[in-house]
């Protein structure tokens, strides 16, 4: 497992220039955009970069040799989920540092007045963004980097259609979710945070089982 993480880390670092540009962009975003956008942006970026290592693995028929190295297919899948989590967490920490520093410099009242609540809320960004991995990893393993992108666009399209459709249907009717919204607001933030982590853990486990099945069936 540690060898695989080392490989993915080194593959990620081969894109030093791209990473540097992203970090500079993040720095300027932190300086110019109010709010915590920078945290979600960087966490998302870290996750996408981590999943991108699957593309490197499959490039140039690389899987065949990779699967002769001393680990089984289950370990390979496990490592992808773990590496995504590590990258998401590391990017989140970096994003938080940038966000906190600029908020203090700017004397952001939103940050100053609700520091603890904001930090708890922003911690929730990790499971929310990580959910992206639970979709992307099995898709990428099943369809490869090119086709999985198309499948993902289709899924996003369907979600958008459903969302817009639901919105137009509910237009003019009393919003049935208004009560839910109110109820959610009354729940303490740490309960929401724990719930998010639990949901994320369950979905990740289901996604992991699907990914293992895909990998076990795969021929190289």
């Amino acid at each position, binding site marked *: 497992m540690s060898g695989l993480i080392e490989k993915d880390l080194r*593959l990620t670092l081969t894109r030093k220039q791209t990473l540097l540009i992203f970090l500079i962009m993040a720095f300027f975003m932190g300086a110019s955009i109010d709010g915590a956008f920078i945290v979600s942006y960087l966490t998302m970026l870290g996750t996408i970069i981590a999943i991108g290592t699957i593309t490197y693995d499959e490039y140039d028929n*690389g899987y*065949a*040799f*990779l699967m*002769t190295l*001393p*680990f089984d297919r289950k370990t390979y899948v496990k490592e992808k989920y773990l590496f995504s989590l590590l990258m998401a967490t590391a990017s989140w920490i970096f994003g938080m540092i940038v966000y906190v520093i600029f908020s203090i410099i700017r004397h952001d009242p939103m940050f100053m007045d609700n520091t603890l609540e904001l930090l708890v809320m922003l911690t929730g960004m990790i499971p929310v963004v990580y959910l992206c991995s639970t979709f992307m990893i099995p898709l990428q393993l099943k369809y490869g980097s090119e086709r999985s992108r198309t499948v993902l666009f289709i899924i996003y399209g369907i979600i958008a259609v459903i969302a817009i459709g639901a919105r137009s249907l509910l237009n003019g009717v009393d919003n049935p979710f208004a009560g839910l919204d109110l109820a959610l607001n009354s729940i303490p933030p740490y309960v929401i945070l724990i719930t998010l982590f639990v949901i994320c853990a369950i979905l990740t486990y289901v996604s992991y089982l699907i990914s293992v099945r895909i990998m076990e069936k795969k021929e*190289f």
Partner: protein
Amino acid sequence: MLNVEKIVKNYGDFRLDVSFEIPDGTVTGIVGKNGAGKSTTIKLILGLIRPDEGHVYINGKEASQLSGKDKQELGVALSESGFSSYLCIKDIIVILRKMYPDFDEKFFTDNCNIQKLPFDKKIKEFSTGMRAKLRVLVAISHKAKLLIMDEPTAGLDVEARNDILDLLRKYLADNEDCSILLTSHISSDLEGLCDDVYLLNDGKIILHEDTDTILSNYGVIKVDEEMYEKLDKTLILSSRKDHYGYQCFTNDRKFYAENYPGIVIENGSIDDLILMMTGGK
């Protein structure tokens, strides 16, 4: 060490159907033309593809069920696949160190230096020969008990081929109980290395013989049409017509040398074996 029991794999019209065994400390070659099924056999052994029928056992364990620890005993070099070409040797050293407890870093770095492989250059900038040398070095750097090499010398010039064969010979000398399975269509490479050879044609093994026997007993008889008619063909494995008469492949050239004085007989080679057994009439 390796036991291939009646494995069958179908790809459309192509059907691979082979059985063989590689005992401990043996170097075995699989030869055959392009498309004969050599790479498919290797992939089945490594569990990269699943057989439709049959089993592959490595040290008594089903190949597809090998654990990470079991795989540490394998050293693999594939013809068209290796570490990501975006990595450099410096990266690979760290990865191998973490993957194989028996990784011999000094052996690996020394040999990379001897073969003039740059440590900081990305593999995608390597020449074909450099990539092939690196693949073999990776396979032999962690004291593997079974080396599996698919066309390790394909597409290389004579010098690079010799370098790779020398690496393998040295590995064998240092690790006597190690077994090697390698495929090639450049059979002269195998003559100085393999104890026995399997000839694969159209997905089937059509001949299995010790290399020494091929080199000492097999031969190509060259005769005109008249002599061909008179020739006792009981020990002729295959024959083909050419511009000057007939070429006949025999597994007992001494018999013909003794019984047909003056007849032209050339010593047999694995190249002749492939040519005559898979292309003859």
